[in-house]
């Protein structure tokens, strides 16, 4: 939308447009091919079968719980990474972001050796009467593990591009760090936090490898929608395709929300401070500040 703004540069080379079209097709064509394979007469019965609805419900519930956990753990983490200044900070960031590049199955194995019955913490938890393996809790933990970096990355970017001038002013006026965080920082980066939370939710919804490795697969307890699709594919390709389409639809809605939700419609043209790198145009901050106060 940037190019609509008066005076903004919008020169895109023609070859880039052609490549962009090929790139878009590369993503859209497989989706179209899948839609073409949907058995429409049976679509409704397939996606409303008991197993499908149970899996969808479980997916939505666990993804919501994971998102809450991501916010609780990710906001302080992003704050420490963006504002803190301590030795090993870069190393900490690398490790926190590791699940982004790790194959999820590796995450599952790592979680197994942490929270599993024979695991690092699992043994003490078992003594305390808490069993995580094969429970819905295990699903939430697996999803949080893979989704947390998404929240940390987008929030840290928002924090950095928002700068710390307003916080500094608040502090000189006598506000304590907690008050500054609550009254200034969080309202300032709310769009970044929101899009980070939505991305974590989407990632949690699609989680498969870590869940399969760590949590197992049982209807209503640990079998989320991706696991149900994987299983249905063994015997009933039609059901797998129908459920895949359902998951795509949910994902499209979620991603659509993440890119429209935070910015007021028709307002500041596409320059959210939450958008990762230093594109935060100067007039974005006062606007956010106004909303914050």
């Amino acid at each position, binding site marked *: 939308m940037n190019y*609509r703004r008066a005076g903004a540069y919008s020169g895109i080379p023609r070859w880039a447009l052609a*490549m962009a079209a090929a790139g878009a097709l590369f993503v859209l064509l497989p989706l179209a091919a899948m839609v073409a394979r949907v058995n429409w007469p049976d679509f409704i019965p397939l996606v409303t079968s008991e197993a499908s609805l149970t899996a969808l419900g479980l997916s939505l519930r666990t993804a919501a719980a994971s998102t809450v956990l991501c916010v609780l753990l990710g906001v302080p983490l992003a704050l420490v990474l963006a504002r803190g200044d301590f030795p090993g900070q870069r190393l900490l960031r690398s490790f926190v972001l590791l699940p982004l590049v790790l194959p999820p199955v590796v995450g599952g194995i790592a979680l197994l050796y942490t929270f599993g019955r*024979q695991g690092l913490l699992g043994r003490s938890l078992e003594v305390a009467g808490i069993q995580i393996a094969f429970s819905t809790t295990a699903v939430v933990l697996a999803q949080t593990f893979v989704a947390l970096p998404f929240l940390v990355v987008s929030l840290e970017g928002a924090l950095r591009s928002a700068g710390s001038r307003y916080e500094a002013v608040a502090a000189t006026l006598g506000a304590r760090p907690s008050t500054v965080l609550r009254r200034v920082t969080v309202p300032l980066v709310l769009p970044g936090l929101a899009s980070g939370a939505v991305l974590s939710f989407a990632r949690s919804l699609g989680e498969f490898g870590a869940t399969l490795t760590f949590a197992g697969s049982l209807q209503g307890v640990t079998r989320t929608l991706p696991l149900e699709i*994987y299983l249905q594919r063994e*015997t009933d390709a039609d059901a797998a395709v129908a459920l895949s389409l359902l998951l795509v639809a949910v994902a499209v809605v979620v991603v659509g929300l993440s890119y429209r939700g935070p910015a007021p419609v028709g307002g500041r043209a596409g320059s959210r401070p939450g958008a990762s790198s230093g594109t935060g145009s100067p007039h974005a901050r006062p606007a956010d500040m106004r909303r914050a106060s």
Partner: protein
Amino acid sequence: MRIPRTRLAQVLLAGVVLATALGGCGTGAPASTGGSPSASSGASGSAKPSGSITVFAAASLKATFTRLAADFEAKNPGTKIALSFAGSSDLVTQISQGAPADVFASADTKNMTKLSDASLVEGSPAGFATNVLTIAVPPANPASVGSFADLAKPGVKVVICASQVPCGAATKTIEKETGTTLKPVSEESSVTDVLGKVTSGEADAGLVYVTDVKAAGDKVKEVPFAEAAKAVNTYPIAAVRTSKNKELAAAFIAAVTGPGGKKVLADAGFGTP
């Protein structure tokens, strides 16, 4: 707005045409792999096999087929056996979609039937091995599992295959035959995932194939049970109709079903059909 809308549309259209042309190339290739029908019909025996073939085999055959392929290549210089292992139903899907397989070895007759019904394999597939379920427990056997009935006891964390996959179907059969209803903590979509839950100590017991327990060595302990004989899985093997090297495919199948192959399979714990 520097870019007029029409020109944008033109360029996008060019991209579409380009991509479609590329797609066309992609789909064109497999269609031409029909092969010459006169190439060969059946194993002629006298001709020395040469060239290379790709064998699609069920995941549970990984160790044995890797061994058999190496033996075959050593005995027949100039041949190359490429192996691809996955769940039988995945392999069926791939072959139906035109994957370049020459030989298919399935872990159950049901998946092979899907291909023979679609006339994608040569002749009638021959069973070359059998496999039965057994109970795998962690070496310490924490839940003291001693029989199939023990698996249904409360508090025993048992993991089985989901009924959609062959090992799960066999589990269902045994449950029905013995009148025992298992309450698993997880129904996995592959037997290796079941074994993984046992070797990691998460589960107290898992129902897997005897060959899996044998391959896992001392990481798990086997608790054999007589009722396992009620659900015997037969492994069929067949040449894929679109194979371009039918001599080599037939020669490899003969090696698998022959005495040498039988011995390797028996050593791994497979039975004879």
